């Protein structure tokens, strides 16, 4: 479905992605793990066209997307839930969700999806008139995911959805991610919480300073010595 081959990206002159290759097949949950600053967020931004692809190719649904503008890429069915939520703070919960469905024309289905999103996140329904900036951290993360879902994506890119959340909430968020995937959305999940990510993913990639250093089934990565040492904190 999505395939990055030998992608290089730069900030100014600094090479941040040094030729990474990642594949995501339809229906999968793929985890992308790595330390802070490894280039995970940049990878997602390169996919979405927010960061330019210097060298290499990105294909989505058999279409070359590496030089398309963000709006075109989004139109093809990729939606990103950015790191740190990036909500429209001064807009209400409902307005944020409406921004998610901005591109869509299917009014009836938007309504249905909105209902569906409220079912997954009942708290958002209760607070739909509240400004996004006044929600708690967990609620904000839920809104960010819900807004991503309102785009009705075929591929959902999640950037550190567990960041800064209490453990119970982390569990809840991961349950929801699993559920979204079951309902048919392919997911590329970026996480520092490697254990959680790998335990719900089919496959995983490990990134270090702009390179993919390891890729395998999530099940195998959980047993991999290097992963256990570096990312799971188990000797």
């Amino acid at each position: 479905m999505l395939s990055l081959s030998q992608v290089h990206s730069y900030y100014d002159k600094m090479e941040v992605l040094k030729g990474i290759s990642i594949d995501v097949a339809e229906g999968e949950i793929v985890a992308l793990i790595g330390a802070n600053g490894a280039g995970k967020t940049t990878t997602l931004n390169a996919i979405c066209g927010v960061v330019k692809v210097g060298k290499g190719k990105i294909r989505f649904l058999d279409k070359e997307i590496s030089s398309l503008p963000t709006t075109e890429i989004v139109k093809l069915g990729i939606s990103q839930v950015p790191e740190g939520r990036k909500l429209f703070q001064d807009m209400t919960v409902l307005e944020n969700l409406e921004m998610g469905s901005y591109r869509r024309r299917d009014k009836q289905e938007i309504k249905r999806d909105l209902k569906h999103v409220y079912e997954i996140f009942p708290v958002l329904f209760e607070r739909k008139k509240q400004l996004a900036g006044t929600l708690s951290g967990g609620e904000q993360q839920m809104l960010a995911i819900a807004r991503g879902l309102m785009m009705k994506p075929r591929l959902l890119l999640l950037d550190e959805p567990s960041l800064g959340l209490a453990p119970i909430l982390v569990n809840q968020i991961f349950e929801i991610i699993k559920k979204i995937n079951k309902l048919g959305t392919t997911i590329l999940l970026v996480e520092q919480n490697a254990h959680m990510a790998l335990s719900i993913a089919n496959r995983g990639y490990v990134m270090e300073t702009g390179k993919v250093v390891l890729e395998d089934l999530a099940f195998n990565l959980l047993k991999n010595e290097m992963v256990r040492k570096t990312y799971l904190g188990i000797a």
Partner: protein
Amino acid sequence: MDYIISGLTMGGAYALIAVGYTMVYGIIGLINFAHGEIYMFGAYFVFAMIVETSKNTSFLISLFMLVIFGITIYLFLRDKFSPLPSLALSLVGGSFLSGFTFFLFLTSIPFYLAFLLSMIFTSCLGMAIEFIAYRPLRDAPRLAALITAIGMSLILQNVARLIWGARTRAYPDQLIPSIIKTQTINGEFLTDKLLSKMSFFELLLKGHKIRIFGDTYISSLKILIILLTILIMIILHLIIHKTKIGKAMRACAQDKVTASLMGIDTDRIITYTFAIGSGMGAVAGILNGLAYHNLSPTMGYKAGVVAFAAAVLGGIGNIPGAMVGGFILGLAQSIAAWIGLSQWIYGVAYAVMILFIVLRPTGIFGKATAR
């Protein structure tokens, strides 16, 4: 009383212009110094349309319009077609439209129509300025964009001087519909007897002075202007809060990258912001032309300076703040004139602004909501 009404009238114009400054700042972080000139052109377009303009002058304006229309059409077409056909189409479309405007300027058309067309023309002007002057500098240092904005303002002032000359112009009274004329019948106030037979709105529409109490009369034109200003602000509020484009504007003002991740075409939204801001600037220019009968190439600069202060006073980027700021400065200026400081009204406007900034650095409403 008269001073208060005048202050509110002037303040309304400032408010309409200030909103344009603040909307643009909110969305691209740039002080659009050419905004005052857009206001000026709004007033002049109406002037050129309601009076019979000479062939030479009409030709000059149409030439200017050719450039503006051409750029505007190009900017919309380039998303759909490749550059060359877009360019060709915009040239054809621009020529056609500006040829049409040639006749509009040459002859004299009804005021209302001119009002509406002027709003459209100035919107195009605003969109074209954004496209050629500001968009290429989107990621450049702020100072570069700021200098370009000042340059744009000077260029437009000189274009106006070239077309209409430096002297002051006024809308000819006989071409303005009686509804919005200031004069009373025979130049006199109506008697109580007549007044009692007419309703307030009839009076308003007939365009006479309205007696408030005792010897105090106010011009219905000014009331109409104030009401119209408020109406436009309500419409703007509805656009920004209830329509899809308005919500997208707010989203872009808060976070453009995330907005584009939602599939919002941020460049297009910026274009619309300029269109709306410029259209409101035109309204201010026309209303001011009606109320004060003096059009000059520097009117935009003068009003712009105060309106900018109003936008800062309201907390730049904050739309309701800009509106209130405009009214405050309008009132401050007329109070200054009332106590005999009419030479100092611009100084007073800035003094009030500075006072507010010192007391409330974030603007009257505290927090910049549009960001």
